[in-house]
């Protein structure tokens, strides 16, 4: 897989399917056990991790948090907070924020860096429904403005942004991938999901050529369990392909 400048790639998949691990490999935080991950040199990346706990012993205001890995002007910080509707929180302590506010501030910090590569690991968790759509719109705007590559992780198998350029479904390997726009523009899709697609959300249609057993082993559709040796090879093949050029 690759993430090009200006492209939004969304990873979906069940818990423990390797979405966050893939994102960390793309960022160079983790080294792949097999295969390789590469970045453009001197890539300016921004990361919204799935979990970032600020415990009480750390006195840090939202404004100071925005400057965690880079310096910023007052104006830039104000703009980033306004974009995520959190300007009223600028003086608040990070440890006192609610879950949704916390996520918004994480996003504000990430976009403040004007990244070339933006990795968002479930960025809207805990955000209210209206805010969710607004934040997805914001991510799209950021992409348009900065022409940055975006790797987005969604926990949700069904609801994926209409602006996503490519969807990858992971479960230990890449199960399937494709453009949601193609799916969304199809007649069957419109007749079924026209309203929700119009509201900024789209559905990514699932068509797997295999199934997962409870222990994660693969069974191809229509094939018996005696084919599993072949499937193990296909996992390895898929894992070898992780490559990030942003």
């Amino acid at each position, binding site marked *: 897989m690759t993430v090009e400048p200006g492209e939004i790639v969304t990873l979906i998949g069940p818990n423990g399917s390797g979405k966050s691990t893939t994102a960390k490999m793309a960022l160079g935080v983790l080294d792949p056990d097999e295969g390789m991950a590469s970045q453009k040199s001197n890539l300016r990346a921004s990361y919204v991790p799935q979990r970032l706990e600020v415990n*009480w*012993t*750390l006195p840090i205001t939202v404004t100071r948090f925005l400057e965690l890995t880079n310096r910023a002007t007052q104006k830039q910080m104000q703009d980033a907070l306004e974009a995520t509707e959190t300007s009223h929180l600028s003086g608040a302590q990070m440890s006192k924020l609610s879950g949704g506010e916390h996520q918004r501030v994480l996003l504000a910090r990430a976009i403040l860096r004007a990244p070339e590569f933006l990795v968002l690991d479930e960025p809207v968790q805990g955000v209210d429904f209206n805010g969710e759509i607004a934040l997805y719109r914001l991510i799209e705007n950021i992409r348009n403005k900065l022409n940055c590559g975006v790797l987005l992780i969604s926990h949700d198998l069904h609801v994926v942004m209409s602006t996503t350029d490519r969807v990858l479904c992971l479960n230990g390997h890449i199960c399937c991938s494709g453009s949601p726009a193609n799916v969304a523009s199809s007649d069957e899709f419109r007749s079924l999901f026209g309203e929700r697609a119009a509201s900024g959300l789209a559905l990514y249609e699932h068509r797997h050529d295999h199934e997962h057993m409870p222990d994660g082993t693969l069974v191809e559709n229509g094939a018996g369990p005696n084919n599993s040796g072949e499937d193990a090879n296909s996992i390895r093949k898929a894992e070898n392909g992780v490559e990030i050029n942003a």
Partner: protein
Amino acid sequence: MLEDFFFRALLGGIGVAIVAGPVGCFIIWRRLAYFGDTLSHSALLGVAMALLLELNITLSVFFISLIVSLLLLLLQKRASLSSDALLGLLAHATLAVGLVVLAFMTWVRVDLMGFLFGDILAVTTNDLAVIWLGGLAVLIGLSFIWRRLFAATVNYELAKAEGAKPDFTNIVFMVLVAAVIAVSMKLVGVLLITALLIIPAATARRFAKSPEHMAVIAAVIGALSVFVGLNGSLQWDTPAGPSIVVAALAGFIISVLPMPKLMAKNDARTSDLKRNFEEVGE
């Protein structure tokens, strides 16, 4: 004035406190209290090695602390034991080995109490130079990595993803902690160094709005504890090192007491503001 032993003690103690404050903040933020304890226990092994090989005690303590902290990094990656078990193992193993080595050297007579609890009243002008120059070096090193170290403290993966080089800053930080321990061991001793690192920083938390703010407050509170502790020790003829720690503890207790007056004032101010807002709204 440097001829006066009490003044020298005060100067040395305040020097250590100013360095221990900011470093102690990171120890608290990163949950490394027991790590600091382990390193300071290993300082006794450093003393034993210095006497055995006729080396400078401060340098020897510094290098042994450094070796122990790097060993810990290595063991954490390899071994199946949990971090706290490893720390406990290293802390008491190095302390015991240090004591055994000292016992073998029948030709040297060491003041064990001095190493364990410090001998701040015996600080020489030479020690003062070591404390202030070493302390200055630590503070310069810390300010150099401050922002990146803080980013790594908030979230290691985020720091790594965004190019803050957390692995490098972590190692530099370990070097700095080892240096603080080496420099301050003579004053407060192996067993009380952690107290001087942690208590002022813990006291500062309640009053701090930002990390930098907390570091400065911790340094001031530490210096204040040294001043109060030494004067108390002079007044009541108590051991100097422990008296400083008791003074720091008193400060901490005061800081955790509820302060209804202060709180009430703040509340009144905010509710006044709210009322004004509402009136304007109408």
